[in-house]
């Protein structure tokens, strides 16, 4: 379960002289997504979608309010346990965030290596997931040698290779053509059917229309719709 209760967020940037202090990017956000649920996160640029995803992935902390991720209140966990909790969350970033000095194989293997899985298990899982995203012939390619769509698929493979309990995707289809976007949605929905809770932030209204699901709509840091 993912639960937000009256969550406020303000970034800790120092205002320049004469400017007002930093504004709240999230204002009293409350919602709940049950285990195994699927939810769209929509809204215009600057509405606070990415900030909300950062709170879910624990790369930011709220100034106020309570957040529960996979049954754990995040302000009550130690740094060590927070790291272990992050391993149960798969994240697809808008800008892919691949490590340029590693091959596609090593990028996808990263979450498994951090979890200290055996190399045999890693080889099986990584090969399978790269086949699934259609990149089994690019194992040794570095991100710079791949197209934007291929990099996106590597990022997705990395997010799902450890079979996370929660998958968070920020504009995952932004660099994909319609066919690739459809394939990606099939993959994400398959994971959701296997029990993974999924949250997808997108601008793509066509995609949302084709795959009806509960939706969180944001405007100016507030939730304006919660199905």
């Amino acid at each position, binding site marked *: 379960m993912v639960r937000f209760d009256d969550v406020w967020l303000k970034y800790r940037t120092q205002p320049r002289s004469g400017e007002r202090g930093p504004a709240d990017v999230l204002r009293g956000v409350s919602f709940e997504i049950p285990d195994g649920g699927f939810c769209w996160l929509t809204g215009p640029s600057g509405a606070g979608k990415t900030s909300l995803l950062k709170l879910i992935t624990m790369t930011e902390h709220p100034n106020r309010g309570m957040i529960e991720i996979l049954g754990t209140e995040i302000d009550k966990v130690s*740094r060590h346990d927070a790291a272990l909790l*992050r*391993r149960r969350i798969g994240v697809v970033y808008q800008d892919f*965030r691949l490590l*340029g000095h*590693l091959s596609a194989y090593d990028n996808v293997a990263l979450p498994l*290596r*951090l979890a*200290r899985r055996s190399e045999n298990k890693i080889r099986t899982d990584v090969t399978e997931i790269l086949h699934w995203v259609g990149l089994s012939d690019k194992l040794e390619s570095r991100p710079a040698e791949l197209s934007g769509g291929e990099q996106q698929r590597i990022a997705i493979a990395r997010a799902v290779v450890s079979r996370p309990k929660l998958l968070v995707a920020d504009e995952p289809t932004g660099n994909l053509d319609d066919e690739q976007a459809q394939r990606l949605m099939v993959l994400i929905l398959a994971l959701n059917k296997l029990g993974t809770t999924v949250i997808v932030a997108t601008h793509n209204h066509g995609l949302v229309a084709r795959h009806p699901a509960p939706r969180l709509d944001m405007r100016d840091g507030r939730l304006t719709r919660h199905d």
Partner: protein
Amino acid sequence: MTKRVDYLGLRFALTDRLLPVLVAAMSFLAALAIAGTLATTTLALQWQGDAASALTIQVPDPATPAASGGATRLAAVQAALQGTVGVANAQLMAADQVNRLLEPWLGADVAQLALPIPAIITANWQGAARPDGLAAALDKVAPGTLVQTGITWAARVAALTASLQTCAATVLLVVALVAGALVAVATRSGIAQRREAVEIIHGLGALDADIADSFAARATLLTFTGAVIGTLLALPILFWLATLAAPFSGVAARAALPSLPPALWVALPLLPLVAACIGWSTAQLTVRGWLRSLA
């Protein structure tokens, strides 16, 4: 078993040349400081021992009969010295020896000047306590007899040794602090260059220890390599200094080639290990401190 992968790409970030070169310079200085301390301590202990045990007794009017009658004042003092526990190797300095000592001040023919030259007896003090009562005892036998000990000189040598040791320890402390600062700066620079990679693997669930260990392993390798190079570069200079010091330490008499003191052979291999410890611990502290700024 999990394969070791350079997740953070630190081989591109923590500079391969600059840090080892600077650590080599620090180790070079440390090797010289350690060698200097050991050499000073060894020589000082030797000089201190010699000076502290030396006794010089001046007997004025040595040929005059002693107050007790019978023998001369010199013979009375010599007899008293023989009977004193702790006094050893008492020897009367020959007249020509005394003349040679006085020659710079009184000229070549001291005997012609008819000056009252005292007899001089040298001896060693081997007693456990200071020879405080000796001067009074000899003054009773032959009034005016002077006893000089090397204790004052020994105290001065001890003070000088302590000062040199403090200086060397300060040099070593400064070298260690500078080495730590170099590692901290290099690590911070590495973090700045690989910040995105650190944030990515942190987001994927890496423990602080995973990230800190990666930086620490790299810093340890670079500081160890630098320290080995610096220590090896110091060796020729240490052998050259050992050659210069050989006449004072008595090594030349025993060996065809100068050798380094055994303590130095123990201390020098420790330098790369100490440098590696500084590299590891500084990188750990720096990275863990920075990671606390991440959520």
